[in-house]
């Protein structure tokens, strides 16, 4: 019975989460204060580690119970097996009443009853996941249309050395150190997201005229090479 609930529930939220716009999230700054009550067990931000609870970096779009080096409760393992993913709406429901959501969770926390506080803390946690301003494919603004890309294209292994040469065309506008004032950052993206985004420009599904033009003349190998290079760029 519980199993069935999870399957249905998570099927709904995967669809619904695509529709949650970034603006619907709360106020991240206020959320930082709300997060104070979570800090005893959870870390988030640069260098965050698992403590009593798992670290919360990259939480958005992450399947429940997915961190390999954290030992989850049975209840969470079940949730993970049934396909629960963390999005704004699943987090909202979970935080409202953790126990009713995952009865056996070790999270001994009564929940956050105030809806605004929940939305704010979710917005705060959102800061530590892929940024949709930079990666529109990231939760919660992910668009399904970008993803029907030939698996053969996604399977191409990019050559980072060739990518480095090609990248000099990108770094005229996109800062190599990942700065993102006015022009989005393109460093350290998951390679697949990068490839999907570039092909979405090439196929004119994404609208920016400069990017459509730049992507138009890159072939599949070149896009893979750029994805590989920027993914590995260290500063």
């Amino acid at each position: 019975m519980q199993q069935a609930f999870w399957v249905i529930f998570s099927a709904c939220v995967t669809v619904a989460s695509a529709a949650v716009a970034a603006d619907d999230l709360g106020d991240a700054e206020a959320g930082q204060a709300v997060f104070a009550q979570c800090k005893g067990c959870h870390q988030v931000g640069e260098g965050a580690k698992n403590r009593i609870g798992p670290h919360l970096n990259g939480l958005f779009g992450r399947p429940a119970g997915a961190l390999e080096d954290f030992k989850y409760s049975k209840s969470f393992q079940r949730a993970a097996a049934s396909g629960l993913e963390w999005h704004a709406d699943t987090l909202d429901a979970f935080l409202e009443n953790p126990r009713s959501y995952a009865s056996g969770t070790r999270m001994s926390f009564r929940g956050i009853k105030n809806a605004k506080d929940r939305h704010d803390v979710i917005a705060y946690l959102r800061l530590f996941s892929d940024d949709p301003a930079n990666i529109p494919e990231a939760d919660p603004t992910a668009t399904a249309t970008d993803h029907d890309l030939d698996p053969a294209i996604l399977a191409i292994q990019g050559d980072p050395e060739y990518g480095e040469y090609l990248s000099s065309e990108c770094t005229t506008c996109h800062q190599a150190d990942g700065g993102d004032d006015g022009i989005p950052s393109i460093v350290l993206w998951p390679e697949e997201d990068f490839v999907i985004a570039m092909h979405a420009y090439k196929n004119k599904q994404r609208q920016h005229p400069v990017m459509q033009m730049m992507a138009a003349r890159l072939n599949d190998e070149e896009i893979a090479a750029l994805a590989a290079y920027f993914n590995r760029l260290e500063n």
Partner: protein
Amino acid sequence: MKMNRRAFLGKTALVTASLAAPAVLADGHGKPRVVVIGGGAGGATAARYIAKDSKGAIDVTLVEPTRRYYTCFFSNLYLGGFKEMEDLGHGYGGLAASGVNVVHDWAIGVDRDAKTVTLAGGSSLPYDKLILSPGIDFVEGAVPGWDITAQNAMPHAYKAGSQTELLKAQLMAMPEGGTFATVAPPNPYRCPPGPYERVSMVAHFLKANNPTAKIIVADPKPKFSKMALFQEGWANHYEGMIDWIGEDFGGGNVSVDPAAMTLTIDGEETKVDVCNVIPAMKAGRIAELAGVTDGNWAPVNAADMSSKADPDIYVLGDASQQGDMPKSGFSANSQAKVCANAVRGVLTGSKVFPAKFSNTCWSLIDTNDGVKVGATYEATPEKIAKVDGFISQTGESAELRKTTYEESEGWYTGITSDMFG
């Protein structure tokens, strides 16, 4: 469908002969030597990329007289009050840190047989490959009545720095209801939308500070870059303030009198309060001294930006005559990277990838009203040829125009860190 690197490089990359037999050009003197003249958009980028990518295998010396480079790009925004002068200044410390030997001096001669560059300070620099990116100088006698000694009375402000500050000071000192004149240059010249962005920024300043003032533009051309966009913007933001006199109405038949502060257009003399004379342009003088110019500009081969007159000299940016690319900072930066890759390949046998060029020029018309034009290019045996392009449309939403402006700010940060590290 996984590809290994060798297979795909075979398909996509041009592997030069030098890969098979790395040329050791530095016969008898250790490391190969590259000298770059001019530390602007083309030269700084080329020096930085060669030093950075060769990881010490090539000696790179940059010759640049000024200790601080003020970008022409965004200098119009300084006139409009959107930027401070210091926002536009960049030092050469980052280049030195990437291994470039920065020499603050003028290059005054090139001996192509001995392969040396003479500096004003008296010393001489030997090179295996010489890169020239000296920007522009003005064609003498282009605007009757004006010469370089008149640049204080009638500034060009087309090399950024003290000229730009002078023009701004004159703008601020204009009498109420006064007249600001711009004499626009004939093609080809540095930054095709530059004079018209400038007019927009001057109008922005005047609208707030001196709303009854007038702007006259005398133009030898029948049309200009982003014309529809600028004219739409001028009508929307600065109605009745700007009078553009194109070729059809005698805009090319002008003379000035800097002592009397008059501008004569097609025989009709007007008293003006500020006169921004932007004369016809040519390659920076050192290109001519090096003997690589043909007429006003230095012809180059599109594949690697090498001079058509000398295979050991490369010419970048505004000074080059390359084909379809506009003379812009973005273009110079793009050409510099193609050149850096080629020079490194010839000197050390590193891989040479096929040339790809691109350009985008943003212009600001009024607060948060940005527009852009851009294109991609490829190397053909004849020239750098345009592949594809786009331009902002008239009637775009205010939101899109604002995003476009914000993009230009991101680009500025991007290109200046790409140039100077």
